[in-house]
C-alpha cells in the first residue's frame, strides 16, 4: 500500500472523527419537516439529477 492511500485514509478518518459529534448533535436538534417541505426539496434535487444526466449525455 502506498503512502498516498495511507494519507487519504488518515484524512478521511480525521474528517469522520471531527464530524461524528456534530452529526449526533444535528440529528438531535434538527427541526422536523413541515407539510410540503419534502416536496419542496425533491423538486430541485430531481432537476439536479436530470441536469447531471443531461451533462453526462453531452460528453459521451
Amino acid at each position, binding site marked *: 500500500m502506498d503512502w498516498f492511500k495511507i494519507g487519504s485514509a488518515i484524512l478521511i478518518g480525521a474528517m469522520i472523527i471531527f464530524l461524528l459529534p456534530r452529526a449526533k448533535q*444535528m440529528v438531535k*436538534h434538527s427541526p422536523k419537516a413541515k407539510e410540503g417541505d419534502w416536496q419542496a*426539496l425533491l423538486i430541485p434535487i430531481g432537476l*439536479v439529477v436530470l441536469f447531471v444526466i443531461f451533462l453526462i449525455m453531452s460528453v*459521451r
Partner: protein
Amino acid sequence: MAFNQPAVSRSAESVLATNKVLRNTYSLLSMTLLFSALMAAVSMYVETGPGTYLLSVGGAFLLIWLVLPRTANSSAGIGVVFAITGLLGFSLGPILSQYLALPNGAQLIMTALGGTGVIFLGLSGYALTTKRDFSFLGGMLFVGLLVILFAALGNIFFAIPALSLAISAAVILLFSGFILYDTSRIINGGETNYIMATVALYLDIFNIFIHLLNLLGALSGDD
C-alpha cells in the same frame, strides 16, 4: 397602529441584516472562487505532484477545524478564508492537469465547471426566492456525509470503480442539499457570520465540481 411599529422596525432590521450577510457572503464567495481558480492555474503551471492534493486539502481542513472558528468574528477571518480556498484551489492543479492530458479533457473541465455553476445558481436562487426553511435537512445531510466518508474510506482499500461513481453521484446530490440548507440558513437567520457562510458555500461548490468532473470523466467513454 403605533404599537405595531417596534415589531415592524425589528422585522425590517432583521431583513436588512439578512440582506447584508447575503451580499457580503456572495461578494466574498465570488472573490474566493476567482482566487481559487488562480491558485489552481499556479498549481498547474508549476506542475505539482499528486501528493499536492492530499497536503493542500489536509492543510485547508486543519485551518477550517482549528483556525477558522477562532477568527471568524474578526477581520483575520477573511485572510483565513482566502488561505483555505487558495489551498483547495491549489489542490486541484494535479487533477486538472490529468484531465487536460485527455483528448476531451478541456471540454470535460468546462462542462463540470459550467454544470457546477448552473447547479449552484439554480439551487441558491430557488432557496432565495421560495425563502423556505430547509433546516430540517441538517441531521440527514450530516449523517449522509458520514455514510459517504465511510464508503470513501472503504473504497481507498477496495478500489471499486462502480463504488467510486456511486460516491460521486451521492456527493453531488448531498452537496446540492447542502446548498439549499446553507442558503436557507442565511435567509432565515441561522447563519449570521458571512465568513462561515462563505466557507460553507465554497465547500459545497468545490465538492460538486470535483465529483461532477469525476463522473463526467468516467462516463465520457474516453479513457
